[in-house]
């Protein structure tokens, strides 16, 4: 629900004269939001009809489209950093973080349903944790404009597990 509200705020603000032509919308979001939505919808519709590997593949495509959006927004020039962040960037950072957490769940579910051995499940779990941890460190420390929302939500989800 929060995702939809935040996206609603973004869609409303990007229609206003103040924000509609900004590079953050035209170059940053560009067509990525529509592509991500289509990938998510495809995943949602096909979910019951395809096997777990197919579901996971579509979900990874969905995750990659959101990552594309976040990356393009990162490099888009920004005139009004605060307003642009809260209205145009924050909704997608939140969305991406949430979908990243979901991806972890999807990988775990897929392995469990395939009756993989505990060793495989544990190994993938440890490996994926290491990858996400590396990703969190990267977006926090290696970038000139760090992302704070993504590590926070991933961290909270790991704690809540």
């Amino acid at each position: 629900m929060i995702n939809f509200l935040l996206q609603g705020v973004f869609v409303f603000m990007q229609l206003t004269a103040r924000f509609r032509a900004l590079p953050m919308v035209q170059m940053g979001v560009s067509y990525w939001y529509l592509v991500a939505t289509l990938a998510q919808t495809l995943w949602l519709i096909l979910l019951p009809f395809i096997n777990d590997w197919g579901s996971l593949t579509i979900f990874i495509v969905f995750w990659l489209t959101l990552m594309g959006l976040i990356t393009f927004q990162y490099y888009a020039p920004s005139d009004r950093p605060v307003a642009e962040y809260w209205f145009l960037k924050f909704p997608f950072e939140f969305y991406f973080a949430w979908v990243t957490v979901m991806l972890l769940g999807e990988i775990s579910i897929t392995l469990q349903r395939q009756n993989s051995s505990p060793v495989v499940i544990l190994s993938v779990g440890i490996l994926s944790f290491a990858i996400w941890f590396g990703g969190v460190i990267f977006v926090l420390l290696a970038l000139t404009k760090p992302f704070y929302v993504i590590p926070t939500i991933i961290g909270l989800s790991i704690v809540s597990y």
Partner: protein
Amino acid sequence: MTEELGRSRSEFVSEALDDEIQDENNVQASDAIKAAPEPLRLVNYLNVTALLVNLFFPIAIFGFDMLGNSPRGIYQNKVCIDMNSNLLEYAFLYS
């Protein structure tokens, strides 16, 4: 030469005033162009479409399920399985 000198002072003043008015009109036109809002572009419309699609399908599928009309109850079964295995997935589906 005689012709130039023969131009009256009033003609010079009149020309100068015309130029000034022209300049002023140009400045006003330029300001008007700057003040006019940018028109909505394709990306703006597509973002609205994306949100509507994003809202429509979860609500439609949820409604379909609630009415018990999903094909062979397949969504319902899937969601039940996912609820047992991962609450987050359920929350995401109908968030």
